[in-house]
């Protein structure tokens, strides 16, 4: 077996954030992209179809005591889930959890764990009719779909679909494929364009992510094999011979969706170029770059406020203007930047809401050589997932004003302690994981909401009595309240060895569109297009790998009106 051939060149990966966003030969692009365009259309159809079945086949899971969330795949009628392995806190046998779309959570039974392969086989205790098993296959196409969710999901969140590409078909006897990009956590399921599970990612690394074929997973997972006896290798279709892919083809596919969107946008608005500018800081262009979207022809630009530097320069059509921060809005993180120019192309928003799985595209910055940003369609595409309402809590309780330093779990018996924050007063007090909390501050509690209410009626520094039931009978402890550890809601993670630079401010926001265009912090402020060329919103945060947030036109109009009324103090 010669797996060495599977090493894809690094040149297409996203490693080191910026270095690999390849510049493309412009102009001739549309004429030459027949294959890519076809592929791109096939992808668009596939993601739409996949999104419809997504919530029945893919679930969001976590593990007691941890805030981590991942996606798992339903593999049979009995409620078995093929899930990424999540190391439990302090090596205890904490149960995995299923987060349901309605916000509730269910404990899962662990059938088997394969830490070496980053996989776990889990089972729902009760059969759930709403879930349907996923097809398993070994057919490999050039493009694959990968469902992902936020590293700390919001309640009711649905996974979003990322599309990735293989540079060439794996050899006949290969056991793994290499994905083009690197933005996945290990154990993520990989689907072909027909929506069948074909592989599972093996590691997260800076270069192309390897994904092990599902057949190989079956070989290693005796339990899984027993569950699905009919899925032996021989029963699977042979690996088809894929046509040769030209270098950079994957990049072309990714960019061609913006090409189309861009052409259509320009046609429908009769404008040229796109209503975008590059905003940077005179002192340090690469650490304060963002894109801006022109909203008034006399030099008014909307962008992301929190990433603006102190001395703004705005580049439009190869010309640099001095930029003025006119006003900003804290709630939406929008800023109004002015330049002394007239007759600029103005964005035309569309209030259309795309169907989940629809292809979206946005321009991106090549780190700082942005001369051609608007003429060269440097872009990334992704799919629309869902609307994230403002103030949606994450699976981790973020609604507390003070904290005991505990991670609690709602169980049938009441509130139990799942984990204790190290070095917190609770840690010092002698409380231990597994204890059932009976009373806090003299009040009996059985629900998390009661706990939250008590905590919110106190201040940091107050001392509370905590009575627990343990095998040795009731115990009373005194715990000083601390500030809750602020985990950015729903986001906020740099996954080790994955090169993606998230926005510093990733939350909170008003209602936002969640989509899977992989952005870096400096790509925010750009308009978000659908394949029809409609500008559906403005990208406001690079939240986590393959997960970005965009504000919708209703918010943009409202905030713009406010910003135009009154500037900051001069």
């Amino acid at each position: 077996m010669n797996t060495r051939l599977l090493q894809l060149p690094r040149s297409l990966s996203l490693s080191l954030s910026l270095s690999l966003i390849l510049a493309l030969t412009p102009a001739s692009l549309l004429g030459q992209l027949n294959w890519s365009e076809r592929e791109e259309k096939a992808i668009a159809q596939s993601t739409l179809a996949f999104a419809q079945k997504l919530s029945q086949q893919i679930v969001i899971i976590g593990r007691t005591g941890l805030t981590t969330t991942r996606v798992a795949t339903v593999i049979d009628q009995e409620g078995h889930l093929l899930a990424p392995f999540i190391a439990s806190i302090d090596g205890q046998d904490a149960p995995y959890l299923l987060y349901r779309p309605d916000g509730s959570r269910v404990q899962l039974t662990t059938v088997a764990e394969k830490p070496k392969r980053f996989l776990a086989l889990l089972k729902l205790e009760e059969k759930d009719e709403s879930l349907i098993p996923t097809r398993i296959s070994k057919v490999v196409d050039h493009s694959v779909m990968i469902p992902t969710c936020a590293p700390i999901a919001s309640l009711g969140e649905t996974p979003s679909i990322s599309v990735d590409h293989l540079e060439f078909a794996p050899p006949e006897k290969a056991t793994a494929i290499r994905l083009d990009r690197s933005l996945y956590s290990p154990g993520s399921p990989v689907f072909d364009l027909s929506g069948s599970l074909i592989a599972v990612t093996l590691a997260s690394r800076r270069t192309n992510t390897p994904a092990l074929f599902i057949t190989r997973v079956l070989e290693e997972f005796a339990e899984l094999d027993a569950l699905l006896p009919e899925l032996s290798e021989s029963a699977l279709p042979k690996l088809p011979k894929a046509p040769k892919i030209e270098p950079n083809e994957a990049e072309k596919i990714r960019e061609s969706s913006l090409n189309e969107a861009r052409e259509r946008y320009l046609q429908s608005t009769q404008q040229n170029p796109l209503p975008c500018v590059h905003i940077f800081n005179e002192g340090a262009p690469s650490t304060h770059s963002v894109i801006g979207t022109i909203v008034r022809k006399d030099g008014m630009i909307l962008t992301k406020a929190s990433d603006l530097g102190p001395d703004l320069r705005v580049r439009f059509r190869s010309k640099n203007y001095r930029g003025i921060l006119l006003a900003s809005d804290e709630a939406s993180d929008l800023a109004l930047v002015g330049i002394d120019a007239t007759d600029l192309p103005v964005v035309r928003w569309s209030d259309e809401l795309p169907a989940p799985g629809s292809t979206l595209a946005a321009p991106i910055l090549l780190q700082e050589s942005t001369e051609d940003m608007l003429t060269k369609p440097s872009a990334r595409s992704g799919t629309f997932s869902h609307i994230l309402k403002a103030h949606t809590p994450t699976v981790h309780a973020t609604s507390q004003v003070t904290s005991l330093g505990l991670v609690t779990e709602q169980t049938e018996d009441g509130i139990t302690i799942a984990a204790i924050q190290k070095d917190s007063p609770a840690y010092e007090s002698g409380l231990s994981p597994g204890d059932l909390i009976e009373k806090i501050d003299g009040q009996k509690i059985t629900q998390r909401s009661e706990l939250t209410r008590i905590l919110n009626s106190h201040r940091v520094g107050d001392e509370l009595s905590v009575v627990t039931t343990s095998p040795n009978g009731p115990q009373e402890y005194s715990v000083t309240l601390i500030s809750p550890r602020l985990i950015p809601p729903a986001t906020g993670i740099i996954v080790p060895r994955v090169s993606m630079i998230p926005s510093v401010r990733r939350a909170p926001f008003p209602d936002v569109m969640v989509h899977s265009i992989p952005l870096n912090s400096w790509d925010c402020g750009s308009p978000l297009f659908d394949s029809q060329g409609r500008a559906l919103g403005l990208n406001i945060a690079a939240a986590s790998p393959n997960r970005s947030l965009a504000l919708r036109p209703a918010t943009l109009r409202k905030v713009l009106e406010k910003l135009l009324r009154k500037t900051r103090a001069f």
Partner: protein
Amino acid sequence: MKSLLTSALSLLLLAPLSAQNTENAPAAQEAPSTPAPQSPQELDKLVQALSPDLVKATIAVMLDGGSGSGVIVSPDGLVITAAHVTSEAGKEMTVLLSDGRELPATSLGVDHETDGALLQINAPGPFPFRPYMKTADYRIGDWVIATGHPGGPVLGRPSPVRLGRISEAGTKSGFSDAITTTAMVISGDSGGPLYNLKGEVIGINSNINVSWNVNRHVPLPSIVARWEALLKGESFGRAQQNGPDPNSIFDEPYAEMRERFEEALEKHATQAAAAELLARPRLLDPHHMQALLNEWEPDPEAEKAPQYGFTLEANTPRIVSIIPGSPAALAGLSEGDLITSVNEEIIIRTIPLTLKLRSGEELTLSTDSGKSVTLKPAQVIARKHFPQPVAGLVNMMVSDAPETGTNAISNEEFLSSLQGLRESLTRSVLPLKNQKGETIVSATVIHEIGQLLTKASEIKDSEGLVASFDGEDYPVEVMAIDEQFDIALIRISAPGLLPAPGLLPVSWEPREPKVGQLLLTPTPRGFLSGVITQPSRSAPKKGYELNHRSEQSNTYLGVSFSPEAVDPVIEKVEIGSPADKVGLLEGDQILEFEKSKVENLEALSAQIAKRSPGEKVTLLVKRNDEEIILEPILDLRPRTLSGTFDQDASRRDGALSSLSANGGELSQRRAGFPHALYHDQAINPRLTGAPLLDLKGKVVGINIARALRHRSLAISTERIDRIVAQLRQAARERN
């Protein structure tokens, strides 16, 4: 621990010896002033003469995590390199000399503030060395030569020389100051020298901006300033962090500020704004937190910005509100006033007004209500800036310093004497255009009946290709193609039609140009200039240009680590290696080797080197917070044969390509040529197919690829001669 102590000892012994020797080094002697060549011919002569000696003193510094470069500056083997190459004092490493010798060396002091460092070769000299500059003596516009080992030492390749000019000096660039040049360096060149035309070391390659024209070097005087301390092994500053800490799952760049903010909230709980925040979960961005902190606990040291004291409508300069007590309030401006002029200049829109307000000067404002007031702004705390986190690179760091002064240096004037030559070439070099009229590649006339050479792969997908000459477009017909060299023989008149009148075939120089020879490529306006960087040789495909590998340890585990890694976390397990056989995985961290703790990568490599092939060793490995014990049997390192694919080389090529591609366009087909000339002109892919000329205007080769940041390729005249004969033969046979 023990080995560290010994190296510290040997270091103390070495220091006085080196210090003494440098006293007598030629650098101390009065040198004549730096030559400033007045003509391209003069420059050509100087660089060619200097190049061999400059290359000889250049070494590669090989570490387990990667490699850098250095320059020998004394006959007994004192080396100047970069701090981010050696990273700490007293470290044992191997250096590769230009004559192929591999010798042990010990790092002396490191200065992370300037990125300068010293290194001592632990072997008896004398070594080839170069003098170095002690007091700053360089100017913007000076010609300079950089050497080093781009991409690490390559088997059989001497250090390439690269010519450039100083575009900026004294920039703040992440390190205290730097010389910015156009001499193109890349990862692996770090620590290598920058020479002036006297052949003195004036700088040390340190970091680059993605733009090809921004290459930064530590000025030698700043290393000399701490010379004695560095010789003694002293360290200054802390190593620069490269990007976000990969171990921090929760990246909260402003955690400290958040803590301060939460404290302030508690303290000011009586204020409405604080009370409102305290009563809800909050995750404010740094600007928001800073604004509130400024209000509650103003920092007297904070940077100030001017403020006149009013807010405006964004469209028209009408005052919306006035800050009580501000200069605007005191001067009597009031809400609703429309500002009509500033310093007697009429103002209609808000933006031009705010641009003026930004200056912070005393301004006279008039309003529609007839007020005319002169305002001197108050100084208030400025909006603080919070940089976006940025990832960097090891070996050659990509710095985020501004790209200023890059266009300040133009060779146009210097090359102006060659303008006559350029004009005659308009009949010999034609642009090939696609149907949209865009130039896609160049072509060189080799026969006046309309035969030209161009780069085959650039034209293969284009239909309706035309050659532009003398205001006319001539259809292009491909006669024959040499796939190996990527050369196409084309004809620019349809059969039966007259050829384009006035085409002038180029004249050829069959002798191969020398390393350091100044060469030209004609552009639509003038010339690009640059030098031959290394002897001609094949330009292997990705993964086939083999790295020079240290032969010191034959014991092999089969794991490699990311060059960015500090901890021994495995990035790659070689298929079939001892590591693979026992199931070591990518991402595993090796905690213990034979029961002794593994502190870092170097320690692990040293441990492995001490063992013999066939020995079974015990590793304690951390995998997903779980500790496991594995017992691989060490093996003999497999020999890599020349001409075979090498994973490390492939990874290196990929990394160099992507870094290069960010600064400008590379050719699609840029490797896999059986033989090529290597030069350092930043040609763009549209200039491939154009001739590479010597200063007499004779063609020494045809440009075939922009390959990497520091590398352009051309097919030599001698090969072209053979290729053309074959292509003409093939074309005849086809007819």
